[in-house]
């Protein structure tokens, strides 16, 4: 089993003490990268859920490599990451969103006493019914209004400090600690809450707290390393700097003898209400939300970065600025390297497209980048349904996914590494700008040598919308695609554009399995078969003009049931045409199946002759795929009446179907089985069940044999909404190293979830072995619970009924309870 595609930017990373290693939270593990080579060295594995905080214990000696990690699984772990070895686990049973340990940052000499307790402040989400016996909290009806809280935790004795809840809030917030370890704070809407860490910590210590107010929602805060200065950024891009905060509240305990304390009482410019600060200044450069704030270690500079992807260096005294532009994506975190002995201070910066840049300071030059799989990019409202921007190269084990900056990234699933990026649209990407162009579809030919993309320029107030279909040819071995043909408005008819209001968007692109032929179908009601010209010109090497052109067009008209040609000269109102919602070639390429809403039309792609029409489904078909070399065709439809239906090509009739919400379908090239990713229904009862049986997983992968409606195997998964499935053909020699025992599998099933994390596994492997592995893991887990859980589902799910079909072939599945059928078969 191979996992990968983890996000590097879910939480802020940390440098090791010698600045040679970088600890990055990657899902359930912490990956350690070398800062000099940018390669991963080791990983800390042990947490059962996402790691949210990693803190390296500062030490005078560079050899010491200890770190604390906190995770959503409710545990805090202590590691020696040079080996790597787990030293200690503190389980507090509440999901931890953030953790700071002030005593680590204090003077190391003071921590010589062995019996000194180490306290951590954690930001947790309270999931318990009755939280604390001491608080005598009554069980509240769900959902709880204030589930996030800041607690104190005694790490030495491995327990939460009793009764100390510093603050409560709706959602758990990130705690920020000052570099000196004296203060820490959180932001709570328009307020900053700052606590002073007591000099001598004990469990019952009363903490002093101040509150600073602002009129906007704050996004980030930072403490000055030496002075009492705090900076905060807000959603509008303003940076506020409070100087000498907490003079009144914290002064006594600080032992500050300051004559100015009283005199500054009258004039406190910029400070609101009765906030305990001396002055407040505002800087405004960032056009949008500030994500990053950090003071330089000497306190002379303030680094800020935001949604627009520019790093700004402010001179603290004068407010002068220096910029590092063109980072290309929103900045998320900013960390300094701790090693002052290095001649060049390198620091590290994470940006939202899953990249970590190592900067050389003070020249602010990017030395190295550690990059991962591109994260799903946001799509404007209303266009989510159009975008299915992912394609798999089954033979090479690659995935092509579109990124926020109008690129297609090729990512090797086997090696967990990005290979190349292809710029699809020639326009500059500026993070934070409104998205005007969306790459809606990506398709790869079976051998991976051709790519086709569809993009949509979003109309502004109904004007200027443009659909564009592009064909790309692979230049060399490294997936460097070059544009071959671009077709503007491939499915719009020029004479008709005023008459018709339906979207001419492309619904599907499919490549012929062997020849240089592709088909694109459109919501406007026709499909076109495209052919690449150099198929004919291969004999003549001088004619390198490899362009694609339209070979044939076709459409299907329901009711009148007459198929008419639709060339450049066509005056028939297209509103009568059925939207073509999906298209697929059969494995040998002899049949082209195009879904006309609820019907499936079968065509001879060469002659462009309609061979047959089969149908129909309850809702418009979203995807079509032929099951390998077998005679079956799988169609899925979504909506209020979701359906998974399998059609027999020899009988031209439905073979069997389920009423399942299908997210993705994968078919192997030569096998007769296929896999679907089904979403679990969202009825309240089911949700409750999800907690116990599915443990928060919202989807199931079902592996079917096409002839049999009873699934061969199934796995339950998280984050299935927006997930993808694909079979990968594996070269046995290349996969050998991943498989510890037994012969390597021929095919692997790849599941990629909505966050582009993926897992590859052998669907036909030894069940027991595989399932036990899966069960331990978080991303994907098997169902091993008993039958009791399902009985209660059935009562709740009357909508699940196997659709009866008229075909002479009788399905072997019982008609009433698909889930029961499905699950009984694999719980063995």
């Amino acid at each position, binding site marked *: 089993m191979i996992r990968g595609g983890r996000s590097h930017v879910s939480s802020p990373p940390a440098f090791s003490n010698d600045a040679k290693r970088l600890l990055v939270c990657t899902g359930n593990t912490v990956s350690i990268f070398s800062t000099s080579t940018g390669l991963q060295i080791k990983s800390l594995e042990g947490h059962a859920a996402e790691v949210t905080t990693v803190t390296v214990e500062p030490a005078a000696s560079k050899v010491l490599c200890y770190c604390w990690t906190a995770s959503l699984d409710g545990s805090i772990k202590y590691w020696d990451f040079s080996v790597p070895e787990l030293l200690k686990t503190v389980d507090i049973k509440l999901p931890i969103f953030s953790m700071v340990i002030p005593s680590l940052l204090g003077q190391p000499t003071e921590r010589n006493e062995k019996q000194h307790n180490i306290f951590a402040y954690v930001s947790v989400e309270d999931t318990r019914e009755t939280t604390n016996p001491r608080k005598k909290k009554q069980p509240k009806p769900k959902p709880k209004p204030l589930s996030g809280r800041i607690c104190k935790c005694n790490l030495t004795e491995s327990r939460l400090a009793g009764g100390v809840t510093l603050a409560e809030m709706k959602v758990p917030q990130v705690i920020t600690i000052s570099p000196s370890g004296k203060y820490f704070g959180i932001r709570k809407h328009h307020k900053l809450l700052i606590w002073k860490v007591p000099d001598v910590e004990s469990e019952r210590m009363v903490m002093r707290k101040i509150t600073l107010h602002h009129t906007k929602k704050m996004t980030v805060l930072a403490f000055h390393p030496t002075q009492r200065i705090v900076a905060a950024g807000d959603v509008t891009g303003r940076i506020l700097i409070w100087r000498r905060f907490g003079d009144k509240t914290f002064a006594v305990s600080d032992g500050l003898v300051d004559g100015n304390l009283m005199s500054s009482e009258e004039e406190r410019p910029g400070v609101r209400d009765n906030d305990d600060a001396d002055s407040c200044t505002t800087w405004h450069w960032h056009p949008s939300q500030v994500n990053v704030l950090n003071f330089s270690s000497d306190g002379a500079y303030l680094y800020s970065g935001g949604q627009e992807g520019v790093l700004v260096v402010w001179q603290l005294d004068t407010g002068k600025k220096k910029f590092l532009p063109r980072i290309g994506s929103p900045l998320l975190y900013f960390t300094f390297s701790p090693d002052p002995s290095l001649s060049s201070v390198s620091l590290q910066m994470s940006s939202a497209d899953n990249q970590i840049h190592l900067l050389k300071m003070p020249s602010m030059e990017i030395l190295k980048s550690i990059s991962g799989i591109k994260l799903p990019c946001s799509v404007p409202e209303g266009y989510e349904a159009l975008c299915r921007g992912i394609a798999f190269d089954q033979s090479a084990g690659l995935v092509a996914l579109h990124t926020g900056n109008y690129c297609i990234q090729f990512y090797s699933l086997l090696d967990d590494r990005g290979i190349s990026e292809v710029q699809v649209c020639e326009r500059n990407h500026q993070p934070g700008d409104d998205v005007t162009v969306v790459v809606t579809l990506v398709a790869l030919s079976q051998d991976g040598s051709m790519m086709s993309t569809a993009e949509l320029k979003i109309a502004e107030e109904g004007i200027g919308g443009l659909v564009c279909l592009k064909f790309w040819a692979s*230049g060399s071995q490294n997936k460097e695609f070059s544009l071959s043909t671009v077709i*503007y*408005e491939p499915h719009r008819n020029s004479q008709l554009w005023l008459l018709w209001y339906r979207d001419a968007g492309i619904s599907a692109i499919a490549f012929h399995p062997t020849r240089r032929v592709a088909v694109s179908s459109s919501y406007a009601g026709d499909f076109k078969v495209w052919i690449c010209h150099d198929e004919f010109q291969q004999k003549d090497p001088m004619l390198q003009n490899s362009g694609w052109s339209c070979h*044939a067009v076709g459409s299907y008209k329901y009711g*009148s*049931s007459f198929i008419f040609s639709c060339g*450049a000269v066509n005056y028939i109102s297209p509103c009568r045409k059925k939207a073509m919602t999906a298209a697929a070639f059969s494995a040998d390429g002899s049949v082209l199946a195009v879904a006309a809403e609820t019907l499936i039309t079968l065509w001879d792609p060469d002659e462009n002759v309609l061979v*047959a*029409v089969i149908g129909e489904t309850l809702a418009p078909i979203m995807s079509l795929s032929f099951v390998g070399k077998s005679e079956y065709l799988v169609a899925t439809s979504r909506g209020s009446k979701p359906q998974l239906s399998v059609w027999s090509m020899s009988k031209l009739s439905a073979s069997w179907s389920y009423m399942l919400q299908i997210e993705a379908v994968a078919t192997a090239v030569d096998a007769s089985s296929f896999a679907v990713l089904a979403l679990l229904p969202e009825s309240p009862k089911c949700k409750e069940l999800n907690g116990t049986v599915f443990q928060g997983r919202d989807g199931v992968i079902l592996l079917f044999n096409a002839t049999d409606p009873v699934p061969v195997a199934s796995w339950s998964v998280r984050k299935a909404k927006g997930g993808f499935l694909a079979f990968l053909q594996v070269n046995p*020699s290349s996969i050998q190293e991943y498989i510890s025992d037994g012969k390597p599998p021929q095919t692997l099933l790849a599941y990629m979830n909505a966050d582009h994390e993926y897992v590859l596994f052998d669907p036909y492997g030894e069940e027991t072995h595989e399932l036990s592995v899966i069960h331990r893991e978080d991303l994907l887990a098997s169902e091993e619970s008993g039958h009791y859980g399902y009985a209660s589902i059935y009562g709740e799910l009357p909508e699940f009924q196997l659709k009866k079909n008229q075909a002479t072939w009788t399905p072997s599945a019982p008609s009433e309870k698909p889930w029961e059928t499905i699950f009984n078969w694999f719980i063995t």
Partner: protein
Amino acid sequence: MFKLTSNPIMGSSNIRDILTSFSPSLDYFAICAGDARIKIWDTLKGQVQTEFADIASTETTSFYSNKPERGHLSVDYTCMKWLALDKKKKRKLGSSLLVLGTGSGDVLALDVAAGQLKWRISDCHPGGVSAVSFATHGSCIYSAGADGMICEIDSLAGNLLGKFRGSTNGISCMAVSPDGKMLATAAGQLKTFNCSDHKKIQKFSGHPGAVRFMMFTEDGKYILSSAVGERCIALWRTDGGKRQSASCVLAMEHPAVFIDGRCIDSGEVDDAGLYVLAISETGVCYFWYGKNIDELRNTKPTKISISSEGIISQNQKGAFPAIFAAKLQGISKPASAHAFVVHGLLIKPSFQKILVHSGTDITLHSSQDGVLLPMSQSVIKSKKGLDLQNRVTALDRAYAEDAVLPLPKILDVHEKKNRHQTLITDPGEVMADSLDSKIQAKFVESKDDTVEVEADSAMVCMEDRLRSLGILSGKDDPRLNLACKSTLFNDIDLEANMPEKKMRAAVLSMSPSNACELLEVLVNMWQSRSDRGKHNLHWIYSILVNHSHHVLSQKSLNPMLNSLYKITKSREVAFQPLLQLSGRLQLIMAQIDKATDDKIQIPSHDDQIDESEDEDEDVEELLYGEVDNESQISSDEDD
């Protein structure tokens, strides 16, 4: 991302001084070219991942402070190999080491992922290290040097475990078998040793010069070796007698610098054979395949070379494309193998997986992307870029004009049909009419079917459309029979008015059985009222006269002849009244003409009145469809 540096092998025309090594899982590639800078390339991305300039000297200052500081140019690496430490975690870089030997006799190991020197043994081999080698997943490394000793080194910590003498002279090359049991050294002659007791097993003689490269096949049965200046690869058998000569010699055009071999013996019979891959000094890759030693000996090598087009000018010193390294990845089918090849320019190599088939030479095209080129070449480069730009085809609305239009069809939709039933399928029901235009299309409406015809665009002429329109009929249409049969008699025009002599000649030229078939067709045509009997009857008559013998002998024709006779009889009865009717009609028409002074011509008439009426109706309907917008029709009948 990376700096393009001046070519380190400036002026040299071969690749023998370049040290290369693949990482165990082939995802990284280390290359070192004389100046002791090691570049690590990411083979997937084709980019430099990292570079070690003077790792030996910087690390020595911090950890071994007694060593004098030296720049990287003073280090001279002589051998390099990438070792996997852990079998299971092969793909994790943290568990692999890049082992290097230097000309000053040091052996050092780099942890590539961490970018650190893992360990170093100084002055291991006075006079220089000549080779390092290890078993596939062994925990110890062997090194050999000019002092003739072989050192055994612990790969994790870098401790010297043992030392023994392999030769009285300096050892030029050494290899360890994959299972770690056997070790081969070469100093002029090859010797094999048992790794555990360090005893000599075999001695091979045949290499006069210093051996440059040597390797064991995976099963340890053969040793492949090549020597400086020798244009061949020698293959030695390890399981033979004590003293042996080479069991096979493979000739090349230039001395080999790198060899990879694979021997598949048992197991699948198909794959069995020996596969040898070698790279010559000039950067050309050779591939041999043989089912056994004897076949291998006689095979001609398959060459993989870089196309000469890529070499822009020979006077550009150094910048010549070559194949630097190659590795056999796996055997796909007999006589062909997957090879992972590094080729191109040294400053920007390309990584490619190719399928080598024995007997088919391959020419690789080296790309010059990302290479800084001198001015003279940049012109060509920019032209190329233009070409690339020009090759993009942009299509707009006029693109679909020559597209194939679908053949229009009529499908019958049974409205009462159930949802899941197939709506319409049988292509036999819907037939295209390929007859000549003289036969007019006819639309038969079956009782429970609703059939609509939609004429298409105005651009298509009526005749074409009619020709292409299908006919829906429950019964077998005789004309279809003729349609198929007409190919048989394609030289005869049944419709033409032929003189009797010609007709007779044509009929006589047919074989009797063919004539019978034609007879059947003709009778059918005549019987169905769809066709004119004018010429048919002549043909039937002619056949019956000329092939009477055959017709008589065919019993199967009897019912047909019977019915023909009956029909003829019945028509004969009607013949007289018809003639009368015709005469009367003629009279009446003449009178009408006179009365109205009209110029209407009397339509030429034959005996098939019904047929012409049908025709008229059809044409009218189609004209109606033509004039009005057909969408109206559909909208009328849509719901």
